[in-house]
């Protein structure tokens, strides 16, 4: 069945058309970012790309730093594929698909050095801020990768540190009172995923297109166009020229996503 779908999609792509009448390198509309969608989180955002909706939230806590970085705050990104968002997702601990999304988003933020983690140290070796970002799709109509990365960045931008109270030697977070202090941002990584189907490239796939692609490349870039993380997926290998072309497409398309921030 998928082979027939693939043939059909390929036929359409010869005419630069998609199943939903888009062009091959066209994002769905709207691309929308809404901030502060969860009052309980320190920062949150909802991202919509076409019918795909993803919510991300940031929780801050105080924890011991990792032993190899005693003077840095910590960051962790998790994604859960909620069964609510797609009939094919099942309840349970995150599977490999969810883990991959979480880790690819994590690398984009971490490796771009987007947040200056050194500024999140409270007491070296003992107490640092721990940033937990969780990504939850509400409606999966494809391209969770790009929506997840965008929602994580938006939620981080929305984050305000809660009030830190020091009672004798212990620090206690007063979650009810947010300060006006934002996270120490320097760069804003945005991801674009380019898929290869046959010999054609597309962006912003629907769930149907995600079933039939040959290769996938997710590219995270900063606002200056520097590359900060990449991940190849799919079962077919790529040539160096194809990779270069896909990066070109991704760098170009990031601008459209960035406008929504």
């Amino acid at each position, binding site marked *: 069945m998928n082979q027939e779908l693939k043939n059909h999609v390929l036929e359409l792509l010869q005419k630069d058309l998609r199943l939903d009448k888009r062009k091959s390198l066209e994002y769905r509309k709207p691309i929308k970012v809404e901030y502060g969608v969860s009052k309980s989180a320190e920062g949150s955002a909802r991202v919509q790309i076409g019918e795909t909706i993803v919510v991300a939230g940031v929780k801050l806590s105080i924890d011991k730093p990792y032993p190899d970085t005693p003077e840095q705050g910590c960051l962790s990104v998790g994604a859960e594929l909620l069964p609510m968002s797609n009939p094919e997702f099942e309840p349970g601990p995150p599977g490999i698909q969810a883990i*991959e999304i979480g*880790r690819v988003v994590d690398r984009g933020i*971490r490796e771009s050095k987007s947040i200056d983690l050194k500024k999140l140290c409270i007491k070296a070796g003992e107490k640092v801020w721990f940033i937990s970002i969780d990504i939850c799709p509400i409606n999966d109509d494809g391209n969770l990768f790009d929506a997840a990365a965008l929602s994580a960045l938006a939620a981080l931008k929305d984050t305000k540190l809660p009030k830190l109270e020091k009672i004798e030697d212990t620090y206690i977070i007063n979650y009810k009172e947010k300060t006006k202090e934002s996270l120490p941002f320097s760069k804003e990584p945005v991801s674009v995923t380019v898929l290869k189907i046959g010999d054609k490239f597309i962006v912003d796939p629907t769930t149907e297109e995600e079933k039939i692609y040959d290769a996938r*490349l997710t590219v995270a870039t900063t606002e200056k166009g*520097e*590359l*900060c993380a*990449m*991940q190849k997926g799919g079962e077919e290998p*790529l040539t160096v020229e194809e990779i270069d072309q896909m990066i070109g497409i991704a760098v170009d398309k990031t601008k459209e996503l960035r406008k929504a921030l």
Partner: protein
Amino acid sequence: MAYTKRIDKRKFDETRPIEAKVGVIKRADGSAMFKIGNTVAYAAVYGPRSMFPRFLQNPQKGTLRVNYNMMPFSGHGDRVRPGPSRRSKEISMVTEKALLPVVDLKEFPNAVVDVFIELPQTDAGTRCAGICAASMALADAGIAMKDLVSSIAVGVIDGTVVADLNYDEEAFEGEVADIPVAVLPNSGKISLLQMDGHNTRGDLKKALELAKKVCMKIYEVQKKALKEKYASGKSESK
């Protein structure tokens, strides 16, 4: 500041010393060891054999299943907690995808080929060493293959393109891009590509070209190791 001299004095396109050996685990249907510098990877292949749990069986063709694992004492620093982690699950998956284009499992519906990759000692580049070992082990197991898979991590350190980063280079204070790549030597195509760190489009292309060049050398080492087992006539029939 430009990175003009490597920490361990290697040339920019020079890998650490490589050793490879095939047939190191007798119980397995195929096995290999791949050592690059202080990173050591063992791979064992079992199968094609019946797939369990049964619901994972694919009636169209056989399945390739990779399990990547670091031994608890093999890490840089703290003990690595035994059992699967998010990291090891992701590496298992990308390794599977890196090997998949070369293996032909059409003849084995409902069966699985299990590849176990274990690392007793590490100094960066573990997924690449694992892929090199695994592709030799698959060949040793007699799985029909179009090609071997050779793999290396290349990087860009403060604008200088280098091959085979070790742990100190990955942790270098400065702008480092770490790019694990797997190459199918006969077609020159790339089946594993990840990157983290800072890079430009131009440097990435240079790094990929370097990876292809280095992988051709690794390919020769892999072929030699395979021939050593089979050409000597000493191979035991199983």
